[in-house]
Structure formats: structure tokens, C-alpha cells
């Protein structure tokens, strides 16, 4: 591909060219399938004067919606609903918006927390008073009953509100499902009593007592407890395979136990304490669990030995093997996995912190670069105004003279550099919104550095954003001399921040004008060849020097 220009193929240039081909999908274009490019933007359509002109012409055209890259935080469901066409064009706002507003209101959530506390207290007092038959306490009992019903009804109301807000999202959140289950289990006894079943069965008593579980709803409200429970759930999730393996071993030893201890289970000797422990599979499973917890295993073994038909060897092999494998080895594996998982979770959390730190550093680095590039641009523009063609020795002369005049100011300039970078971080937030406008001019300024300096582009470069006006001319010339001191650190700085920079770009997106982008890629490719040529020339010079002989 590069042989056409008689150049050595450079991998970098090839990579840039393939990037160009990829971005503009040139392959399809050259094969004859061109993609339609929208010719008009939304601004043109909405502008009434331009709209008339467009509508008088061909009305079947593609319109591109203007895209401005912005940093968005988390978009809530209510924000999404507010942007829906159905909602905006209807006469009355839907009930779900009101429900969402109520649910997110801090007063409402504090009220719910208060109700949960009240529920706990009511329950405690009720249980104390349940047995007493003191008639003077009857109004108190009545108030407690009323309070309990009020709390139940308000929880039901909260669930209905959440359903009104979004029915499908309700079931996605596990805490909501838990709320639902607890509330329903409190309602169920009442319905069953209404239907005529006797109100004294044990099952109903248990269901009534599940009101206590409502106190667990507190866990969803406080953030720290949520984090702990989530960390626990994650640790358990990663141990699923371990638990599956453990279950397999439980199965193996339970079934084997039934067969091994057949004689013991069917034995007719009296006073066998653990006779029924291996009689059928369920009992055997329970016994295997008892052995897993190392409880009375020796007593069980000695009991088995009392029966003469049971072979001592096999029963003791069974018990000892299960103790070693299950109780000692498996239990310690479980402990080890939990510890490792907790460490991993902690490392991940700290990774997130370091990730944020890296991004923050990359942010600062970016602003430093922009500041430096702006100052170099002004100094280059000054240099190119004096000199027609920026040949390197002449540029070095002008830079040397600049460096000599500003040597005395180096120290002051460096401190002012750092001050300006602080000012930069303050401006940056303000100028972020102007970024899309200044991006176009920035890209053109970038081109000015890459290609030969052209006078007409300097004018455009000076129309830049307010950043360049912050700098005084002394700092711009001083920074070129401070370059030599910063050269050593530059490479390490870049290498440190490079992963952060590369990763950050997944959030910032750049809007390029189409032809500038094409030209940019072309010029970048040519630049690679030029750099290669310069390197070759340098090598020739070195060779020429080396070939001087001492006569």
C-alpha cells in the first residue's frame, strides 16, 4: 500500500490508514455501495427561514439530530418518563409520576422509617400484654390493635404506590420483593380467618408472628447495612460451586451410610441409642450432617460396634473418612474461600478508588497539556510570523533568543505556571459546556501545528476560547525554556497517565467535521512518513560524520 510512494512500509502509517478506511467505511464506498449522509441538521429544520428553503426543494432528505456529547449522571425512571412522547402529549400527567414524586419525597421515606420503628415497639408491648387479663388495660390493647392495623394499611399503601410507579421495575429489586412477601404474610391470616378456618392453628400463629419480619425492612433503608448484606450475598454467590460439591459429597455419604449400616439398623439388640440414625435416606442425611458438625461421633461409632454383625473396619473407615474429608477439609476450604472473597471485594473497592484517582490525575494532566499546547501555539505563531518557512535551524535560533531573554524569569514563570493550572481547573467546569464549540477551532489549531504554518489559519487560531487569554506572553516564552527541564519528566508523565487518558475517552466523545477528520487522518499519515524521512536524514548525517578519518 505504501509502495506507491516509494516508501518503506511503516506499521504506524498503515494503522492510521486502516483507521481512516474504517471510519469512513471506504471499502463499501469504493465497491459502489455508498452510505447516505444526512445533509441537514435539526437546527436547519427548526430555523423557519431555512426550513422554507428546504421545503421548497426536495422534501425527501435525511436529517441528522445534532449530537452534543455531555456527561450524564444516573438517569432515573421518572426522568425517563418525563421525556416520553406519550407523557408529554397527553392532557393529564399519568398517576405514576405523582407516585414517583411521593416515593422520592424525603418526608415520606422518613415517615415509613418511623412506622417501622413504631411497629417494632407495638409488637413488643403487645406480646407482653397478650397473656394478661387485666381489664383496665383494655383501652391500651385496643389502641395497640388499631396502631397495628394502621401500620399494615400504610405498608400496603406504599406497595400500591410502588406498583403505580412502575410495576415491572418493582419485581427487579430484591428488597421490594421481600417487602411484598412480608406484608402478604401478615395479611394472609386475616383472610384465612375471614374464610372460616379456625383461628387457632399453629400455622396461623406463626404467620402472625412474621410481622416481626417487618423490622427487617429497616435494612433496606440504611446504606451501610445494605452494603454489608450485598457483600455477604456476593461472597455466597461465588461459593455456589463449592456448596454444590459439598452437596454431592453429602449425597454420596448418605447413600453409602444406608447400605453400610444396614445390619446396625436392622439389629434387634436392645438399648441401641442411635438405632434409627441410618434407617432410611432422610435419617441418614441428617446423621451425615450431625457427623459433619463433629457431634457425638465417637459415641455413635461405639454404638455401632456393639452390634457384632456390623464390620468394624468398614464402619470406622466410613466415619473417619467422612470426618477428615467433610468436617476438617471442607470446612477449612469454606473458611479459606470466604476469606479470599472478602479480600477480593476489598481489593475491588480499593481498585475503584485507585481507578477514580487515576482518572482524576489524568484529568489534571489533560488540562496541563492543553495549557502547554496553548502556550506553545502562541510562541510558534510568534516565531512563524518572523520567519517565512519554519526550517528547523532558524526555528532553533528564534527559540534560543527567546530562551536567553527569559532565563531570568524562569523561576517566577514556573510558579505562575502552577497557579495557572489551578485557575485552569476552575475554568474547566465553566468551559466544558463551551467545549463543543471550541472543539472545532481546537482541531484546526491542531492541524496548524502538523502541517506547514499557513498564515490564514493563524487568524482562526486566534479566535480561540477564553483559555488563551489567561496567559501572559512572558509565561509562554518561559515555558519553552522550561521544556528542556521538563523533557526528562515528560515521557514518564505520559506513560503514567496514558492508561488513565485512554480509559477516560470512553466518556468524552469528540465531534469532528467530516472533511476535517479526513484531512486529519491523511495529514497524520503523511506526518509519519515525514518523521521517518527525517530520521533517515539524521542517520545519513551521522554516517557522514563518522566517516571523517584522521589523516
Amino acid at each position, binding site marked *: *500500500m505504501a509502495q506507491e510512494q516509494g516508501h518503506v512500509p511503516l506499521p504506524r502509517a*498503515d*494503522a*492510521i490508514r486502516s483507521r481512516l*478506511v474504517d*471510519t469512513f467505511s471506504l471499502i463499501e*464506498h469504493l*465497491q459502489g455501495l455508498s452510505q447516505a449522509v*444526512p445533509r441537514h*441538521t435539526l437546527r436547519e429544520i427548526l430555523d423557519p427561514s431555512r426550513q422554507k428553503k428546504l421545503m421548497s426543494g426536495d422534501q425527501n432528505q435525511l436529517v441528522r439530530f445534532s*449530537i452534543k456529547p455531555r456527561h450524564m449522571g444516573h438517569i432515573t425512571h421518572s426522568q425517563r418518563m418525563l421525556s416520553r412522547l406519550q407523557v408529554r402529549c397527553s392532557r393529564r400527567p399519568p398517576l405514576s409520576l405523582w407516585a414517583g414524586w411521593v416515593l422520592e419525597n424525603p418526608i415520606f421515606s422518613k415517615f415509613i422509617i418511623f412506622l417501622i420503628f413504631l411497629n417494632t415497639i407495638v409488637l413488643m408491648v403487645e406480646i407482653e400484654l397478650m397473656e394478661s387479663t387485666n381489664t383496665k388495660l383494655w383501652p391500651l390493647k385496643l389502641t395497640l390493635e388499631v396502631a397495628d392495623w394502621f401500620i399494615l394499611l400504610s405498608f400496603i399503601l406504599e406497595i400500591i404506590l410502588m406498583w403505580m410507579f412502575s410495576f415491572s421495575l418493582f419485581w427487579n429489586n430484591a428488597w421490594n420483593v421481600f417487602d411484598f412477601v412480608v406484608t402478604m404474610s401478615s395479611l394472609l391470616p386475616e383472610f384465612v380467618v375471614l374464610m372460616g378456618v379456625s383461628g387457632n392453628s399453629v400455622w396461623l400463629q406463626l404467620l402472625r408472628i412474621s410481622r416481626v419480619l417487618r423490622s427487617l425492612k429497616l435494612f433496606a433503608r440504611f446504606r451501610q447495612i445494605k452494603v454489608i448484606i450485598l457483600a455477604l450475598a456476593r461472597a455466597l454467590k461465588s461459593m*455456589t*460451586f463449592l456448596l454444590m460439591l459439598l452437596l454431592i459429597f453429602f*449425597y*454420596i455419604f448418605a*447413600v*453409602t451410610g*444406608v*447400605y*453400610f449400616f*444396614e445390619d446396625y439398623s436392622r439389629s434387634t439388640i436392645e438399648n441401641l441409642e442411635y438405632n434409627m440414625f441410618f434407617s*432410611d*435416606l432422610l435419617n441418614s442425611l441428617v446423621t451425615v450432617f450431625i457427623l459433619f458438625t*463433629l*457431634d*457425638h461421633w*465417637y459415641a455413635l461409632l461405639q454404638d455401632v460396634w456393639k452390634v457384632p*454383625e456390623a*464390620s468394624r473396619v*468398614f464402619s470406622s473407615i466410613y466415619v473417619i473418612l467422612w470426618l*477428615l474429608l467433610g468436617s*476438617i477439609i471442607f470446612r477449612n*476450604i469454606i*473458611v*479459606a*474461600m470466604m*476469606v*479470599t472473597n472478602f479480600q477480593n471485594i476489598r481489593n475491588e473497592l480499593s481498585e475503584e478508588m485507585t481507578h477514580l484517582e487515576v482518572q482524576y490525575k489524568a484529568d489534571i494532566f489533560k488540562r496541563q*497539556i492543553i495549557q502547554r*499546547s496553548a502556550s506553545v501555539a502562541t510562541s510558534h505563531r510568534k516565531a512563524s510570523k518572523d520567519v517565512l518557512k519554519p526550517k528547523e*535551524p532558524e*526555528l532553533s535560533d528564534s*527559540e534560543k533568543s527567546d530562551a536567553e531573554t527569559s532565563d531570568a524569569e524562569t523561576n517566577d514563570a514556573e510558579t505562575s505556571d502552577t497557579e495557572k493550572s489551578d485557575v485552569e481547573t476552575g475554568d474547566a467546569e465553566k468551559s466544558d459546556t463551551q467545549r463543543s464549540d471550541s*472543539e472545532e477551532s481546537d*482541531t484546526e489549531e*491542531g492541524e496548524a*501545528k*502538523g502541517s506547514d504554518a499557513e498564515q490564514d489559519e493563524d487568524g482562526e487560531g486566534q479566535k480561540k476560547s477564553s483559555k488563551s487569554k489567561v496567559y501572559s506572553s512572558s509565561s509562554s516564552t518561559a515555558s519553552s525554556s522550561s521544556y528542556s527541564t521538563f*523533557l526528562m519528566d*515528560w515521557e514518564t508523565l505520559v506513560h503514567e497517565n496514558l492508561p488513565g*487518558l*485512554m480509559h477516560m*475517552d470512553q466518556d468524552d*466523545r469528540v465531534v469532528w*467535521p*467530516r*472533511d476535517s*477528520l479526513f484531512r486529519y487522518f491523511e495529514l497524520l499519515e503523511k506526518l509519519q512518513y515525514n518523521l521517518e524521512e527525517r530520521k533517515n536524514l539524521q542517520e545519513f*548525517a551521522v554516517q557522514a*560524520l563518522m566517516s571523517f578519518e584522521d589523516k
Partner: protein
Amino acid sequence: MSQYFHHNPPVRVASSSLFGTASEALYARFKKIKRKDVECQAFFRKVLKNPLFQLLMISTITSNAFFMVLGTDYNIRYKLFRLFEISEILFVSIYACEFFMKVYVEPIKYWRDGYNLLDVVIILIILIRYSLRKIKGRHYRYLHIADGIQSLRILKLISYSRGIRTLITAVGQTVYTVASVLTLLFVLMFIFAILGFCLFGTPEKGDLDNWGNLASAFFTLFSLATVDGWTNLQEQLDKRKFTVSRAFTIIFILLASFIFLNMFVGVMIMHTEDSIKKFQRELMAERHVTLMEEKQMILRNQQEAVNRLMNTQSGGGKNFTELVEEFKKTLRHTDPMVLDDFGSSLPFIDVYFSTLDNQDIVVQKLQELYYEIVNVLCLMLEDLPKKMSSHSSEFMN
């Protein structure tokens, strides 16, 4: 790809024993044997990798396990006797088929994989039960033990579940440490067993039940180590008025239960951490490598496509720039293109151009140095003839 491996020259290993050289020669000979039935082998290999086959195996093993559960109950076994017999024959035949297929496909490499060895062991266990039944008759004492061992068949499931396999490879690294800790524990128990037997197992006034012979002494000590029911054992010793028994018991419990069994935990934690970290690093590296390869592939494909286009142009080898000249004319300045790759982003441009500027400065400095060198050499050159002429003039004079 596998063809490349067969072209490796056979490595001659100088082994000292006759057996070593013989087995090496045999192995090399085996490697050279080419199979004639390549198509049939390929077919069976495809069958073994087929997901349907794996599903069949998993369902067979699960139903086998379920039937074993049902078989523990005597009544169910009595009623559904025929079903049990038929299903048993079915399961054993499926396992045998799978074994033969796998051995047929890879006769030599089959024996290297651990899970295949597990399959072989399970088939042997089935054979043991069958042969015991046949040889010793229906009323052999230990027949129910052979029945009990059949429950190990469910271990075949492990080879079909990827998660458990990774878990076992991760945990399996710790096997050596586990074995060494267990050996240490055994040695400790041995020492204390002999001591206990001598102290408390004498026939006259000793506790013969628990310390009478080595086996029961071991059991007693294991019971002490797992601190289950040790107070009863201690009571027995106290009844016989052994003064040293308390110290003995307490020292052993401290050593075995508190120190040894918890050392177990510590060692396992260390190794599990290491193996999991290594595993995750390997996973990451693998993913990275495949990603890089894919990127290279895409790049290469793209270059080839453009090359092809240029070569098949009717104009005969048009230049790339000429090809896209027309395309360039259609580009308008007001069309926005949103890109989020690093190569066309502002930080990259800024950093790249700053780096280029630095490079320029360095090259300038280098050039200045060259000029100085040339200058000095020129001066030296100028000086030299003058000296020569002055020398010659002195000489002449």
C-alpha cells in the same frame, strides 16, 4: 494445526535404566503408528463433543443417582424390582459405551486426563459389585458394602460441569499441603498414642477400653483432637486415679485441636488465595491475547480488502489517493461525526504534538552538536596544514 506437531523430531532421552530406554522406544514407536481409520475416529470425536451427547450423559447420571436414592428403601425396591434391574443394565451399558468410545478415539492420551481415570475407577467399582455377586453368591456378608460404594457414580457429573472443574483445579493445588499437614498430625498422634498406651493401657489398673491397644488409642486421641466427648474419656481416666492424665489430655488438646487443626485453616487460606489469583491472572492474559489476535485479524482483513480493490480497478493500479479523491469531494464541513476512539481525541492530539515538539527540540540540539563537531573538525583541519607548513619551514630552516 495438529499436523505441525507430528513433524517434531523424536527427542532422544538418555535414561540410565534398561526399562527407561525400552519404554521410551516403545512410546516413540507408538507415536509413529498412524491410524488407518481416520474417518471413523473423526466421527466418534464429533459425537463425543456434541452437546446432545453431553446432555444425554448428564441425564443418565442424574437418573442413576435418583434411582439409587429410591433403592435405599426396601419396599420401593421390592415393588419396582424389574424397573431397577432394567435401569441398572441400561446405565452400566451407557457407561461402558462411553468408556469404549473415548478409548477408541484417543487410546494413549486417554489415560493422562484425571477425569477419565475417574471413569475407569467407577467402572471397576461396578465390576467389583457384579463379580462379587457372581462369585460369592447372594448372601455374602460384604455384599451391601459393594452396594454402598455404587453411590460414587455421581462423581462422573463433575467432569461435565465447568464450574466445579475450575474449583477443583484451584483447590487441588492445596492437596500436597493438606497431605503433609495430615501426615504431621498422624505422627503426633502416633507419639501420643504410644505414650498413652504405656501410661494408661496397662492390663492391671489401666483403662483397657480406650487405651488397650493401638487402634483404640488412636480413636481416643482422634476424639480428643476433635474435642467431641472428651470429658467422658477424661472421667474414665479420673475414676482410675491417674494423676498425669489431666496434663496429658490438656497438652494433647492444645497441640492437636488448637494449633494443628487451625494451622490447617491458615495453610489452606494461603494456598487458595495463591491459586485463585494465579487462575484469574491466567484468565485475564488469555482474554487479552485473544483480543489482540482478533484486532490483528481485523486489521489484516481490511488491508487485504483495500489492496484487492486497488488491484482490480479497471484503471490499472490507481493510487489510493486518486481512488478516494471523489469521495473527498462529497464530504461537507457541516456534517458532524461523533467519534470516541483515542486516536482522534483531543488529549491524544495534545499529547502527541507536545511529544513531537519535544522531539523537535531534541533533534535541534543534536544538530547543533553536529555543527559544533563539524566546526571543531574544520578548525582542526585548518590548523593542521599551518602546522605542517610551519614545521616544514622550521625544518627547512
